[in-house]
């Protein structure tokens, strides 16, 4: 949970309520989370991997996350990896998030991990980027899908690199170096990233900036450019929208805040973060979740009738994203004076008898 965020009022209770909502949603779905009503049904494995990672980051050892990790371990495919749900072939993104979830678990079988890692690297193309799907032959893909489904995407590539690193793959190994080169090439003119799977740039930008920063591929000037563009894109109410809306949306706001937190200290950026955090705290629903807006884009697959933009109707994906952002904001001190004062107060020691 949050520790140092004395300057963000209301963050800790908001995160706790969000965790409570997610715990309840998992209980209703046998320990897994479900979201996004697409043609193959709701996503279980992909959404559960994502949510388990978010919860484990906020509340290490949380039983909900550990139960989901155990379920994901059981549900891993024989040949390794995971899919959108059990009816859909494995994909690079679900496998990456499944691996990231397993990295948060205790006593996870290395054989399950190894097979999933092998499955994941099969999604890396010649350009170094990772694609969601590699085979147009497996169900449900039968040739009617747009090339986007099989093309490397920054968001999938970033998740894949995070998963490889989480399981000990060397950062200087070929797979990760090539992925970093892909991410560096895939940047948009404004400095961030876009992806065919998301309605706006917030999700791919946060994940790609995080990973490329880890790998030394972002300069201070790059970070600054991303931060400035993100601040400039804020809505008048202090939130962000990925769809050009006038008012903020929780999913985009959470990811924008998380992107800004990757930057160097800066008064303008810090002020935008504070406004965004206040906006998120105020936007929480009574049940502890945050409202969903269409953010997942399914590229045109007219034959199957599932093209379009989709909200996470169960609000688990959005809520997991928001609690991660609020927790991260709460960890980082924003007020230099407050921090110094706290340090000074902690400094003096005095000799005293204790009642051992």
């Amino acid at each position, binding site marked *: 949970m949050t520790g*140092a965020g004395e300057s963000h009022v209301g963050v800790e209770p908001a995160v706790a309520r969000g965790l409570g909502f997610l715990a309840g949603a998992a209980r209703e779905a046998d320990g897994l989370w479900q979201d996004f009503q697409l043609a193959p049904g709701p996503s279980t494995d992909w959404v559960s991997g994502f949510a388990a990672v978010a919860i484990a980051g906020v509340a290490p050892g949380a039983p909900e996350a550990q139960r989901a990790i155990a379920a994901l371990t059981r549900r891993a495919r024989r040949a390794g990896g995971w899919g959108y749900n059990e009816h859909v072939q494995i994909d690079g993104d679900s496998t990456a998030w499944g691996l990231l979830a397993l990295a948060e678990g205790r006593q996870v079988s*290395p054989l399950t991990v190894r097979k999933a890692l092998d499955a994941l690297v099969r999604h890396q193309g010649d350009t170094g980027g990772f694609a969601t799907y590699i085979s147009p032959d497996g169900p449900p893909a039968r040739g009617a899908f747009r090339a986007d489904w099989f093309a490397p995407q920054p968001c999938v590539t970033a998740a894949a690199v995070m998963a490889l690193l989480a399981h000990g793959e*060397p950062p200087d190994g*070929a797979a990760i170096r090539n992925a970093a080169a892909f991410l560096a090439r895939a940047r948009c003119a404004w400095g961030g990233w876009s992806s065919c799977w998301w309605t706006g740039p917030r999700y791919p930008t946060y994940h790609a900036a995080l990973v490329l920063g880890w790998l030394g591929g972002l300069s201070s000037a790059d970070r600054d450019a991303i931060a400035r563009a993100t601040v400039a894109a804020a809505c008048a109410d202090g939130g962000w929208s990925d769809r050009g809306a006038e008012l903020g949306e929780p999913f985009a706001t959470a990811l924008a805040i998380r992107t800004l937190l990757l930057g160097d200290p800066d008064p303008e950026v810090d002020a935008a973060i504070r406004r965004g955090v206040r906006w998120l705290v105020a936007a929480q629903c009574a049940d502890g979740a945050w409202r969903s807006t269409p953010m997942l884009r399914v590229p045109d697959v007219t034959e199957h009738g599932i093209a379009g933009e989709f909200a996470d109707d169960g609000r688990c994906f959005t809520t997991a994203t928001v609690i991660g952002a609020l927790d991260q904001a709460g960890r980082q*001190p*924003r007020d230099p004076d407050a*921090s110094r004062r706290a340090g000074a107060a902690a400094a003096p020691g005095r000799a005293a008898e204790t009642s051992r």
Partner: protein
Amino acid sequence: MWSTQFVVQELWLRSRRCLLSALDDAGLAPGEAAFASYMRDQGALGRSVLARLGPGLGTVEHRYLMSERMAGTANRRFARRLPFGLAFGHECGRYLRQVAGGAAVVPDLAADGAALFNVAASLFDRLTDRASEAAAVKALLPRDRLARLCGDRSEVEALRTELGALAASELRVFGAVIAELFRIAHELRAIRGDPAAWRGFVDDLLGAYDAQLATLQPDLAAPDATAISRAKSVTPFLVTAQLAALGAGTAVDPRGLAEAIGDVFWRVDDLVDLHADARTGQLNSVQLRAAGRTADRAAGHAAGHAAGRAADRAAGHAAGHAAGHAAGHADDVRTAAVAVLRSDGVEAVAAEIVAGITAVAARLAALEAPAAARSALLAWLVMYVVDWIQ
């Protein structure tokens, strides 16, 4: 024939099963619920220590420490383990101080110092593991600066001033942790005024520094690489013991006890990393034992391996080296793993760990320390041994 994956999996499982069985046989294994509860409390303690000591590092450093940039590619693991690293050091320092006798300073500066020292040691280890960062660490904290920090309190502010000119980075966080550690140590020194305890702290701190650097530049002719590896693991516990002695302000020296604790964790380290070391080709004493190597041959292997790595780095071929490992050593991995499985190396090390814990218990029993402190220290040791093998 079993695949390499199965063999490595068996190695992973066997190392954990053997150690837990050995603990169980000795009546030392905690129950599942008790362990979970203990570690939950340790996590909470670590987070509270972090909230209390973090601001003292400075705003920029504290913020970077808590950010997703900290520790780079290892950020998630680092963030997950940071509270436990702080709690581990804090409780080690607190219990050693308690068994050494004397009254605590409030707040318990010895425990706070030990918490920071554990994080500093971990960061030093991480940073010096990469050639480029190692040079920067040695430039920021050469041995003579460490000695000056020990001798002169004003050096702490000089270090802070120097850090202020650096960009926010892991190196800057490391420097800030060192500065805060010395601020606390000098505070303890001023309160206790025990010159012998201070000398002990300085000697062991410099010894730990030397031991860490010795693993980076191994001497090809080193008679015993195992001793170098052991020193790296054990000396941090000696420093913690000296902080505890400073905090206790008594003549009781917990150094021998700390060395026994360090020995336990040194062996646990090798057992825990056995399957990973088999995969990456790192030196591991359990593997060496299985291969029937003598100490001298082990030293030669270690030095040769390290020298190879150093040469690769110097030539800028680190990536090639890693790729070579992946492609060319699959058979080696299998051979090494099978050799360990066919030997009794895992069982032997597990038995040594249990014997080590028993030795710690015997040392504790010989001390005229409060029973509660002795049993708390022993519980801490066992719980973290189990935690490390999870």
